[in-house]
């Protein structure tokens, strides 16, 4: 008797999203949208049940309104069973999210894994949940999962939250990479890593919606199908994220580099779904056209992108309006300071100027000269 279920994790509902600045609130709202899409997928895919492998909520102290909305979304799935695992962000602690009156409103189809004990998900499926009761630990939460007994023909699925010990420096809730093998699990549904990771019988769907720059391939849920005990699971990642977070600090030498950057951004999808952090690095002497193209790109992204964190270039265009007299002298002094040299003449007393300020001053001078020319 095959089983089909949706494996998701790291919803991180209520996340502060400080990196998104003034869009933080909208970023928070986007996570609910992603959950809604994921749950709709579960219905569309007609799965037998849904597994949420930890970090449903960002923190034990998230607002009641966050919990209520999550419960409302889960209610839409009834009567489809939903199994929820407390993770390290939302561990089972006194007064935590799971003890709130707002969570207790969840229907009977929602099961919160409170104990490390086998839970049946139908006659042929046994779940081995590993709920977390604290934020940090060096103990493998899956260590308790018993080995398959001889003659046990059920499909055995582990549900845990932690870091596979296949990477160095992963000490919080380390999970034995050979757990599926050693405990005779057909599938080990994991949460914690925000990027998609698929191994033979072990998988991380990653966070449902990106939560920071630098996450590798976030924003998926997994539809898992297992035909029977000891059979290889079939895992299909499906993207549900609404926003795409992307950061880059490309070196710009000429306008073609800007075009390349633009193409890269265009390949990410609709601009209004992009959370961007860009710090282009044109070198000194980069042609004026490249600066113009960068400025053009910045203006368009500022208009259209969901969020743009743009670091202004700190180099001066080679084609900047020719500086004369006092201005040329000042510019030369600033260039000397940036090169680490002490300027001659009146600029000598500015030798200790902060290079950041000197760079900004030089860019400013270039800009003002350009404006005056125009």
């Amino acid at each position: 008797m095959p089983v089909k279920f949706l494996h998701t994790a790291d919803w991180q509902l209520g996340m502060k999203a400080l990196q998104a600045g003034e869009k933080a609130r909208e970023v928070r709202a986007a996570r609910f949208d992603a959950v809604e899409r994921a749950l709709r997928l579960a219905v569309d895919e007609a799965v037998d049940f849904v597994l949420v492998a930890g970090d449903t909520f960002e923190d034990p102290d998230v607002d009641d309104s966050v919990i209520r909305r999550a419960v409302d979304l889960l209610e839409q799935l009834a009567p489809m069973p939903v199994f929820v695992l407390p993770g390290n962000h939302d561990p089972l602690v006194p007064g935590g999210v799971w003890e709130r009156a707002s969570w207790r409103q969840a229907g009977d189809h929602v099961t919160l894994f409170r104990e490390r004990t086998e839970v049946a998900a139908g006659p042929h499926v046994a779940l081995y949940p590993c709920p977390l009761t604290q934020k940090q630990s060096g103990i493998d939460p899956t260590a308790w999962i018993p080995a398959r007994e001889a003659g046990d023909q059920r499909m055995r699925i582990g549900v845990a939250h932690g870091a596979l010990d296949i990477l160095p420096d992963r000490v919080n809730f380390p999970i034995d990479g050979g757990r599926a093998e050693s405990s005779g699990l057909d599938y080990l549904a994991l949460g914690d890593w925000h990027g998609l990771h698929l191994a033979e019988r072990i998988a991380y769907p990653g966070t449902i919606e990106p939560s920071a720059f630098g996450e590798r391939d976030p924003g998926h849920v997994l539809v898992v199908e297992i035909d029977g005990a000891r059979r290889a699971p079939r895992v299909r990642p499906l993207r549900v994220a609404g926003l795409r977070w992307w950061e880059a600090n490309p070196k710009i030498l000429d306008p073609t580099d800007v075009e390349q950057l633009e193409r890269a951004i265009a390949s990410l999808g609709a601009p209004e779904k992009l959370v961007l952090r860009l710090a282009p690095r044109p070198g000194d002497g980069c042609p004026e056209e490249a600066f113009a193209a960068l400025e053009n790109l910045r203006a368009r992204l500022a208009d259209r992108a969901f969020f743009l964190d743009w670091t202004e270039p700190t180099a001066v265009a080679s084609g900047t309006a020719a500086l004369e007299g006092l201005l040329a002298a000042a510019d030369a002094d600033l260039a000397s300071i940036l090169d680490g040299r002490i300027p001659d003449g009146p600029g000598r007393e500015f030798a200790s100027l902060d290079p950041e300020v000197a760079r900004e001053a030089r860019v400013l001078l270039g800009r003002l000269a350009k404006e005056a020319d125009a």
Partner: protein
Amino acid sequence: MIVERITLRSWRTYREPHTFVFDERFTLLVGRNESGKSTIFEALARVLFDRHGSTAKEIRDMQPLGSSLGPEAELVLCAGGARYRVVKRFLYKSKCELFFDRQGRWELDHEGDAADDRLRALFGSEEFRGATRAEHRGLAQALWYLQGEPAIPQAGWHESVERGLGGLVSQVARFPREDPVLARIEKEYADFWTPQGREKEAGAAAALRSEIAHDAERVGELRTRWDTLVGARTGLEEARHREREFEAELLRCDGEIATLLQELDALEAESRAIAEAKQQLSLAQEKRTRLESDLSAVARRDGEARERGSDARTARGECETAESLLRAARADARRHRKSWEDELEPQAVAAGGSIRALEALQRLAGFGEERMGLERRKKSLGKLLQELARVRGELRGLRAPSRSDWKDFEGIRAALLEAEAQLSASGIYVAFDLPGRQAVTSDPPAPPGPDGEHLVTRPTTFRVAGVGEIRVRGGGATLEELDRRVKERRLQVSETLRFYGTPDPDALRELHERRTRMEGDEARLDKERDNNEDTLEDLDGRLTALEDRVRKTRETVEAHEKARAEWATLSAERIESLLAEHQDSRGRLERRVKEERELEAQAQKQASAYSEAAEKSRKAQAEAESGADRLRQENAETLKSYGTLDNLKRLERAARQDETTLTDELARREKDYQARSEGPRKLLEGRRAARKDLERKRDDERTRMTKLETVLDQAAAEGLYSKTGDLEAALEVRRRRLATLERRAAAVKALRNLVEAHRQSRSAALAGPLAERVNPWLAFLTEGTSDGLTLTDGLLPSDVHVPRYDSDLPERSLSYGAREQIVVLLRLGIATLLSESERQAVIIDDRLVNADPLRAQRLAVILREAQARVQVIVATCNETPYAGIPGKVIRVPEDGLRESSAG
């Protein structure tokens, strides 16, 4: 720029067109004060730096007095290698036209505002702000030294002066493209900083910083709350841990209690038997108690019945005694009443009648005297009234002056004497001493006085018979008046005497005194009459009343037998004695009556008390007897179920015995039971107490948990997590913005300071060549007293070097004239520098008047040197010092008119 010619029309004193043509090198405008020299320079400035459309007061002031024509000037000048002609008219039909010389022909270059702008640009003045102030004239500020301007510009040279120099001095390059960028840097700088380099209080950075401080404070508050929540969570976890420990303890405790209860259950049969024995004992105790109670009640009631019988007897005895005393008291009362009523009171009444009779006799004796007194007073009063009537009758018949009449008469007499005395003193007395006895008559008559002198009081003519007439004039009005007054008074005196029929004033006085005496008598008699209290009618009424009283008193005497028969004849003393005796007797009797009445009242009061006591004793006797009967009846009822009292006593003894037996049995069994169950029971109690304690502790933990959960729930309910997140995000955004702003502010400040440093460096570079030009002139002018001029960054003189002491003297220490001369040298220096690329015009409007003759000559030498490089135009009213300078001399205004006519 140099000026070739200027024509003025309708401009102040120049109503007619005047044309002045200037030499390319040196022109001296000579004229007296108010001749119009300064007007020429004013016209030059206004053509170049005022808009033709201006209607400012200064422009209107240029119109000739009484004229409505627009002031107009035409100017020909050379600038930037070209030759221009400007025609500008203000106010009425204002216009501005700028022509340039194209191969000897004037071609219109600009007109209207465009022409104004072009002209302004020639001197680098950036905007039209009027020609009135020197600093608004661009480069001309340095080249033209006109009337009314300070020696040294107060606000420094206009930027265009420095710029003009910068563009022309070979050592320092000038770059036109700098200016807009520098202006932008200044603008950018002003966004962040004050001119003094302080951050702008109202700047964006300051506002952001304030917002960040506010946000940070709020975040701090929220984080403090989060610390509380973390504490609450830790506390909650600890409490939950302890609660679970207590729960486990409770479970263990419950197990032990269950075991102990099982042990105790095994002793349950014995316990039940003890309970039954207790029940039996209780019944036995109940029975014994009932019998004891009945026995005790019977004995008590019997005793009480006996006591009541005794009480009844005592009350009966008391009643009999009281009744006996009552009777005795009533007899006493009757005796005393009889004594005062039948004996004493009649005697007292009789004594009272005797007293009244005796008193009547006494009064009858007194009535005679009273009647005589009244009759005497009646007679005396009659006489007084008769005398008064007589005096009044006489007074009515007497004609005599009253007191006021006499006073008036005396006044008239005194006035007469006074007038006569005055007349005697003031009059003219004429006496005739004639040899014969010639008749002397006078008109008006002036008869001689006793001494033969005639008193003349008015013009009088005396005729002396045979001798002739003597006319006397004198006196006048006063004498006549005195004479008239004397006559009037005499007439009044004589009329008064005639009225009273008296011959002289003495008789009149006597008559007056007589009247006075009679009025005194009348007054005295009136007073005597008024002093009498009674009138005759009063006295008659009192006599009648006296008679009535006599009659009534007699009736009293007649009514008393003894008085009528015996006492009527007794003497007053005897009557007095008898009266005293009777009054004494009556007093004694009345006291006795009072005593007897009091004794009677006492006896009656006692009788009443005895009566009440007897009644009370009777009532007590009845109550005691009734109570004894009731108690006996109750005892009979109680004993009815026992037969006899002895039976009751026997039953009570038997019940007590049964109870003792049962009590002993129960004690024995309980002791046995206690010995067997005590251990488990104590253990059970201990466990139960321990359980209770555990339950309390667990409940305490639960209460603590509830409180802590409430804290956490409250934070979650109010959205503290999101709120903190929102605030932190906003704070982060602001901090990023502030960092950008601060970096930008620092950058613009650094850029501006760097540019400023270069600018100052360049100013120093400008000052050098300028000083080089000026210093030799200064040494020549001062004959070596000063040989060097130090210039500020703004190219203004600050110090002069004095070689004798090898030190610098501040420019402000110099005399006004010296400062003026130095500034002329400085302007010449600037002009010569500027003229290296294009010849410039230097205008000096009569500013060397403060120079001494020697310095004036030396200045002329310097001007002569300068005119080789610049166009020098000097206005003066004294041409002597400039005699040696080759060039042109224009007489103002006459040469202008001539030139104009010629042109």
